[in-house]
């Protein structure tokens, strides 16, 4: 849940985005000024994170697709492709990443059956 009255969001980046954010902004989480709701796509553009480097985003601990709306007060994290294990299914990535360019493989194969 977004915190009432806040005009900032907390932003984290995982995998290589951890290093990128630390080098660019000096720390994680980045506290980013935000007065109006924006989508994850818009936030990624503002932070110069290429869309293909994001599989899903977390918003307040929930996995969301990149076009999800972020509100002031939210806690956000960008997750590039690279989460190991069956957790991409268990954590719900498969339901959120189907239209994301980062998931070239999943998108290309989504109608096929691996088994």
């Amino acid at each position, binding site marked *: 849940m977004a915190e009432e009255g806040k005009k900032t969001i907390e932003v984290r980046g995982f995998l290589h985005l951890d290093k990128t954010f630390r080098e660019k902004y000096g720390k994680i989480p980045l506290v980013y000024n935000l007065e109006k709701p924006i989508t994850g796509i818009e936030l990624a553009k503002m932070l110069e994170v290429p869309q293909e480097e994001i599989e899903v985003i977390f918003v307040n601990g929930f996995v969301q697709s990149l076009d999800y709306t972020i509100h002031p007060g939210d806690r956000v994290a960008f997750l590039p492709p690279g989460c190991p294990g069956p957790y991409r299914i268990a954590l719900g990535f498969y339901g959120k990443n189907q239209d994301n360019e980062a998931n070239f493989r999943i998108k290309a194969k989504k109608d096929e059956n691996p*088994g």
Partner: protein
Amino acid sequence: MNKFIRIDMTSLGVKIEETPEKYAGLGGRALTSSFVADEVKPTCHALGKNNKLIFAPGLLSGTSAPNSGRISVGAKSPLTGTIKESNSGGSFSQKMARMGIKALVIEGMPANDKFYVININMNSVTIDEAPPEILGGTGNYKAIEILSAKYGEKVGIAIAGPAGEYRLPTANISFKDPEGNIRSAGRGGLGAVMGSKKIKAIVIDDTGAGQVPIADLEKFRAASKVFAQALMSHPVSGQGLATYGTDVLINILNEAGGLPSYNFTAGRIDHNDNISGETLNATITDRGGDGKVSHGCHPGCIIKCSQWYPDKEGKYITSGFEYETIWALGADSGIKDLDDIAYIDRAMDDIGVDSIEIAVAVATAMDGGLLTWGDGKAVLDAVKQIAIPTPLGRILGGGTAVVGKVCGLYRVPVVKDQGIPAYDPRPVKGIGLTYATGTMGADHTSGYCIAGNILNVGAKIDPLKKDGQIEYARAMQIGTAAVDSTGMCLFVYFGIADSPDGYQALIDMINAQYGLSLTAADVDKLGESVLKTERAFNKAAGFTNAHDRLPEFFEYEPCPPHNVVWDFTPEEIDEVYNF
């Protein structure tokens, strides 16, 4: 592979037989579990003379197939009382396969108190008395060095550490890796079974062995190439794991609110940066020296998820520094110093204990007041006491369930007496179903690989909701049982989950090696068959559906930040094994 070696420790006799026909088409977990179900009395005491310990390479082990060097070890588990298969990297599996050894079985137990070393080479199998300098608390690192000097630097070694000698139910079987370091068949206490049979170590020398025969070499090579491409072109197996190791999951599970913390009282910590895979990578890179951010646990591994973690001076501390170990010590026990965790990991490898079970037991001991939250130095001292063993060492070495009882706790995170690993079942419900119903107690790796058409179900899964989770847990356990039988590392799943070509290539390699024409449906059937065999053994050992339950506290203690509880009914849980 046609040799079936039986070592009778009661008579100290060795028999080398032809592989029985019924096991000819099996490997890895399919073979070990079938054998245990056939020959081990389900109600026997796991540390008594009627238990049997079996080592088996996978179907593809010893070939050039990438990531095919896993060794499976099976027996009745002294920790859980269930059937057990535990697998590991190292070079042991590939050497067995190249020597044509389908399985190595150890049965009976000697009347005397001597420890022995089994020495296997192309000419003979002998039972030697163990050198006294590797006994009585000598760590695995030193013992491997001594055995390598005695039997040859390139030999493969399986060893029971001090914990195995003391027959503690958390004892693992450690395997020498290509650099003389340690990989482990960790879970279920199989090192105690080895110790109960007075086997300190098994040394295998494949000098003079030929290549594994392959029925259709051209087809095999073609399939192997497709398989390797599927692994290397995937962002997880091709890049993510090699860079950050499995510890990359710290930040991900923490963000999802599913990182069990302070003995499963919360799902998120604030000190995740101290212990994350990203920090692990940065620390190894900055320190240099012996440090390696990427390393394979067996020859032929192309994923290379392991690493060498160095101290501040760049000197090697530990390798195979896994997410589950770092989670249990860092988040579940509140230790904030990654170096402290690395030294504890090294000590656990050296003593020969399951680093998940001991670390979960440590967090439970902290909840019970036996240790102080976050005190890494005290934990290192306590863990080292297992090698003596002091009473505290024996209690920790007894595992999570024992610690919970000794401390008078109800919040004891175990299923079938095995510690629950690093994914909280309340906000990550599919994993919870696997913990509850797995044939070997709580084990995240028993539900790791896809089978059947699960992607459609996967697209609908919300980790906090029940929908689709039963089908998910069932399919993942079936798929895992099949892959565990190939000798493949489970991490190949990452590459093949999103690539039907890669999955078919895995099957094509088996077909080309053995001259078979298996289909994906056949492989699914193999997985189902393995699970049914294991479950039948457990049933005969006294296990019922009532044992397929998570600890009760998950039902009434909400896990923050999502504040959810475990809410599957018994009837729903029982549906997982309705196939």
